């Protein structure tokens, strides 16, 4: 059932230009980050690690959570418009499956976004003339970054389900990112969903050892909590198709 629901979600995404945002927007942090790296070589001496912080610091805090927010708002917008809730909730598909199918698509989008960010990072490093070997931590940064991205999506899916408008959940994602920056600077990054993305990507300090148990526990707690709240909302609330 879940697989068929995922297939339906993928079908909804077909020909929708929303993927363009994930393809075009990460190019800008890469280009601007590389220029900034090249302009400050006397301070940024740690080659790949310095370049990674320039690529990811601002984007993981402000830009990626809001971008995931747009994608999640767009996913529920399909159901909020044109009386689609009637069709979605009368189909013989449990509401939990409906939510999980959307989250599974988010997970794939998060993984693809991280893979693209990784490709841009390597290309930028080559263009910037970094000769050192690639940092062995790169797959870990990307993988845990993708996991943090899934947590942000899970929370945003709940907000976009509850708020039947496009803009407020996206604004909340941005404010969450700003708040996440403060929480991370206090050392409580694993306790706040919007910090998990930057923490997983080691954006603040690429040399940092990720507090893995706390990070994974934070991801698990927020994933379960957001999924439980969303499924409860879907099963208890009457739909409004106006």
């Amino acid at each position, binding site marked *: 059932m879940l697989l068929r629901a995922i297939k339906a979600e993928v079908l909804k995404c077909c020909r929708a230009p*929303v993927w363009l*945002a994930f393809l075009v*927007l990460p190019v*800008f*942090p890469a280009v*601007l*980050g590389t*220029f*900034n790296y090249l*302009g400050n070589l006397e301070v940024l001496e740690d080659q790949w690690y310095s370049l990674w912080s320039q690529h990811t610091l*601002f*984007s993981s805090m*402000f*830009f990626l959570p*809001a*971008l995931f927010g*747009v994608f999640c*708002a*767009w996913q529920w*917008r399909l159901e909020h418009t044109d009386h689609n809730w009637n069709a979605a909730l009368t189909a013989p598909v449990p509401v939990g499956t409906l939510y999980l199918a959307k989250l599974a698509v988010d997970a794939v989008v998060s993984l693809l976004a991280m893979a693209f960010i990784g490709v841009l990072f390597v290309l930028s490093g080559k263009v910037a003339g970094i000769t050192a070997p690639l940092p062995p931590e790169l797959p870990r940064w990307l993988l845990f970054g993708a996991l943090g991205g899934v947590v942000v999506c899970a929370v945003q899916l709940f907000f976009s389900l509850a708020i039947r*408008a*496009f*803009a*407020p959940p*996206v*604004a*909340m994602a*941005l*404010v969450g990112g*700003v*708040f996440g920056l*403060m929480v991370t*600077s206090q050392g409580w990054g694993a306790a706040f969903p919007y910090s998990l993305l930057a923490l997983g990507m080691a954006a603040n300090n690429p040399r940092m050892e990720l507090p893995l148990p706390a990070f994974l526990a934070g991801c698990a707690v927020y994933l379960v909590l957001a999924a439980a709240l969303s499924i409860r909302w879907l099963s208890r609330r009457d739909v409004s198709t106006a």
Partner: protein
Amino acid sequence: MKLLRLEFYKCRRRRITLICAGILAAQLLWFGAYLTRQDPEDLAQGWMLMLYNLALVDAILLPVGTAAVASRNCEIEHKGAALKLLETAITPGRLYGAKLAWGALVLLALVAVRTILFTALGVWMDFPGGVPWGRMGVFTLISWAVSMMLYALQQGLSLRFANQAVALVCGIFGSFVGLMSMLFPVWVQRCAPWGYYGLLSLTRMNWDEATRITDFYWRWPEPVDVVLLCLWAAVFLTVGRTLFVRKEV
């Protein structure tokens, strides 16, 4: 005036106040967290520190903030094909003007409340030198003018595309470019409309690499930057209005 009043009626339950309150709360949180990390001697330049940080946080939050406000006001017209009915009563140009005036008043209220809140914070923190009323006023005007220029862009996008993802992705992109442009030379900032919060900022920072001491100083915006801001606003207004007026509903 009647059209403008109608815009306020249309938005009365659209929680615009909540969005504005969220932006203000994020700004207060940002600056509050920043203040907690400062030593008493850093606060000797408290007012300059405040305006420098506000320009930075404006560049991050207001592009998406204006996108969200414009989107909330414009998406109601896409629902139920409201434009079809509206344009039988008024010209699209007047509707565009009413929406822009509504946005101008909302943003003016937002930046005015922000200035009052932060001035009160500065007085409460006892920043030395007394309140620089003139500079606070000019800073409010600059924040409003740059936000209005971006609002013209966002309103054009939100009215042109029924899918608000387009306008909001533009806002997110703007937030990022606005922040990053501060790290680049002035000519780069001038090319990015979202970079004008930093470009027109009333304070600049000197960082002495040897002593690791940060020093702020007052400045006035370059006249050429003000002219460029007006040019950007004129372009966004003209293109946005033309696209809306010519749109088949």
